């Protein structure tokens, strides 16, 4: 009994201790868990803050990225090797960079586009495109351009990077030098009708070379020098024949004028037309063109494209006046020495001329598979339709050199005298003769293009320009010749012959 009592007493003492120990242990474990939970909570909170921070950074980055997507960069480089067959070409084989262009396009808000495209050449950067384009956001039909951009013409607007042959046709290069012009343009292109109308107003002098009496171009910066603005309009419409092909037709017109810089105006055949009131009078630059592009799916793409342009293109002349007071001259009059001065006024003029011209080009393009393309182009340019080839070099207008000497001093005395402006002399040189600028050309261009991928293509082109032969004089020499010298060896180009002027082009283009 006593043993049982002792056992119970011992148990009574041990059990609370055990319970106390277990409770303490559990409390400790609970505290540890609570601490762990607090730490976890803290960690979660820290992580949440961090995620919040990352989210904020991602949102900022997204916003920055969205701004960047408003800027578009594109461009292309054309590196080429040229071999000229013309005998006056030196060097006759050259490597060159034909185009190095980067186009920056920025669209800050829907419908407003800024475009800037410089052309980089070794030692020279020129501005090609620089314009603002405002697109109508409601009808999506009207676009307004202001700045410097391509003139509205098929071959002008067709980018060099896409063209199937190395260069544009001769007529286009002649009437639209440098392709771009400064002005404003309204473009109307309804989204669901394949119609496009372009109406543009330009300064009109972009790209023109206008020599003065010394042969220096007075238009190097293309700053406008007359009040007249040239108008251009173009309308195109495309007929689609289901999945067989399409025919695009169109017409464009140029209604312009340019300051004459002289007071004599010749007709296209070099006969005298009329006296202009002053050198600020305008001469005509008016022409129209009709274009067509036929696309036909025949074992791959096949295209036939052409354009015919005719009209009147005015060339300003020039007038240059110089006055020279010559050194004193002496004369003996009645045994008395007199000293007089001579004032010589020289006027050198070239009359302005309005030349009737015509030209056309036809392309035949065939794509073979996805990578190969062959193209042939025939183009013709007659810069003066009113002067027959055998009359080139003969047709001219010449006012003949006029020299008038006037005595303004009469001596009647006996003593020595110095007479100022005693004599005046007026010299006028004013003429213009037909020549190389009137020669008709037909040019055949052959080209093969291989597309390596979407960015790189290589083109082999061969251009064969053929001048229409001019007449010869009694000695059998052409009425138009031009002398040249290559490395000290003199030569003469005689345009009564077909001159070899062919050019081989091997071009590598990278576009991005």
């Amino acid at each position, binding site marked *: 009994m006593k043993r049982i009592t002792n056992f119970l007493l011992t148990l009574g003492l041990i059990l609370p201790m055990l319970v106390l120990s277990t409770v303490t242990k559990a409390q400790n474990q609970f505290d540890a868990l609570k601490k762990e939970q607090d730490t976890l909570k803290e960690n979660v909170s820290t992580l949440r803050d961090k995620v919040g921070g990352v989210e904020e950074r991602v949102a900022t980055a997204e916003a920055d990225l969205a701004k960047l997507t408003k800027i578009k960069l594109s461009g292309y480089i054309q590196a080429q090797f040229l071999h000229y067959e013309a005998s006056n070409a030196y060097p006759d084989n050259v490597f060159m960079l034909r185009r190095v262009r980067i186009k920056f396009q920025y669209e800050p808000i829907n419908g407003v586009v800024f475009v800037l495209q410089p052309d980089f050449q070794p030692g020279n950067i020129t501005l090609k495109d620089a314009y603002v384009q405002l697109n109508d*956001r409601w009808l999506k039909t009207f676009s307004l351009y202001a700045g410097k951009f391509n003139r509205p013409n098929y071959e002008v607007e*067709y980018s060099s990077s*896409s063209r199937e042959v190395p260069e544009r046709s001769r007529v286009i290069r002649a009437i639209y030098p440098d392709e771009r012009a400064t002005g404003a343009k309204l473009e109307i*292109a309804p989204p669901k009708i394949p119609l496009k109308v372009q109406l543009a107003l330009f300064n009109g002098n972009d790209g023109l070379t206008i020599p003065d009496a010394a042969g220096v171009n007075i238009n190097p910066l293309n700053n406008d020098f007359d009040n007249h603005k040239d108008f251009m309009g173009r309308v195109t419409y495309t007929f689609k024949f289901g*999945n067989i092909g399409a025919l695009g037709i169109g017409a464009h017109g140029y209604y312009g004028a340019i300051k004459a810089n002289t007071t004599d105006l010749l007709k296209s055949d070099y006969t005298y037309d009329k006296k202009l009131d002053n050198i600020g009078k305008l001469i005509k630059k008016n022409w129209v063109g009709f274009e067509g592009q036929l696309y036909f*799916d025949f074992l791959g*793409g096949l295209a036939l494209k052409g354009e015919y342009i005719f009209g009147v293109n005015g060339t300003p002349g020039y007038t240059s006046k110089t006055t020279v007071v010559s050194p004193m001259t002496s004369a003996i009059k009645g045994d008395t020495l007199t000293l007089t001065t001579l004032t010589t006024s020289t006027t050198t003029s070239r009359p302005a001329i309005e030349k009737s011209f015509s030209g056309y080009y036809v392309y035949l393009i065939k794509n073979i598979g*996805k990578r190969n393309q062959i193209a042939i182009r025939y183009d013709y340019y007659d810069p003066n339709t009113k002067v027959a080839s055998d009359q080139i070099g003969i047709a001219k207008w010449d006012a003949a050199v006029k020299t008038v000497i006037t005595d303004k001093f009469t001596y009647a005395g006996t003593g020595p005298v110095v007479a100022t402006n005693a004599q005046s002399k007026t010299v006028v040189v004013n003429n213009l003769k037909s020549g190389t600028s009137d020669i008709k050309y037909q040019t055949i261009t052959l080209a093969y293009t291989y597309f390596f991928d*979407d960015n790189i293509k290589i083109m082999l082109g061969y251009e064969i320009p053929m001048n229409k032969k001019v007449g010869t004089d009694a000695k059998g020499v052409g009425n138009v010749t031009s002398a040249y010298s290559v490395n000290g060896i003199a030569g003469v180009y005689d345009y009564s012959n077909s001159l070899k002027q062919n050019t081989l082009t091997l071009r590598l283009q990278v576009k991005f």
Partner: protein
Amino acid sequence: MKKSKKVSGLMAIIAIALIGFAFMPAPKKITVKGSDTMVILAQKWAEVYMKSHPTAIIQVTGGGSGTGISALINGATDICNSSRPMKQSEMDKLKDRYASMGIEIPCAKDGITIFLNESNPVKELTIKQLSNIFSGKTRNWKEVGGPDQDIKLYGRENSSGTYVFFKDNVVKTDYAASCQTLPGTAAVVNAVSKDKFGIGYGGAAYAAGVKHCLVKKDDKSQAYVANAETVKNGQYPITRYLYMYLCNRPTGEIKAYIDWILGAEGQKLVTEIGYFPVK
């Protein structure tokens, strides 16, 4: 001498065999790229076609109609899927590169569906209301008969044909800046299914797990849901064709594949996926 002749003969045979192998036509892989709206349809077409034509290899990728058209112009794909017609500027690029206007093949019809969360009490919307919602002029559901809650917009990325089509034909102005752009209609559907106050748009084939909103031309018109009948007879106001584009007229295996798509079997799959056949 004899040995050397034998060796030469063997070398010649090996050379001829190698040349032969080099010129042996490899199985032609047809690449298809473009519209995300059409990607499940295009994948189904490819899968079924390859089963019945074991030598055919068809690779289908999405990326959006714009991306597909760029790939077609760049020669990176044989067929481009597009949920919108090609733009004039894109056609011009194709013309410049391939001297071709491209080949347009309508291969299915779709009704762009307006997705609402299943708990949203709004049942129908007019085109004008949709325009106001997606342009940000209408910002609260109570303005169109719903709860007093902000409207959450979900849409597609700008490379998507659905984005362009919906913008040109419904929104008719810029999308609201608050419209969250998502890569693919499936993502739009997923977002709307989780957002009680969300609204999105996309191809009819993706509308599982969300509510189809009825659409009407204006207040006076009857509201319709996109289905085979309403899309076919033009009652549903936001219908469109789904296209395949090629550079040139198809030949060989590509032609066979397209003929099959436009045939009974291919068009049956159009219906199975949730779009509507062209005929």
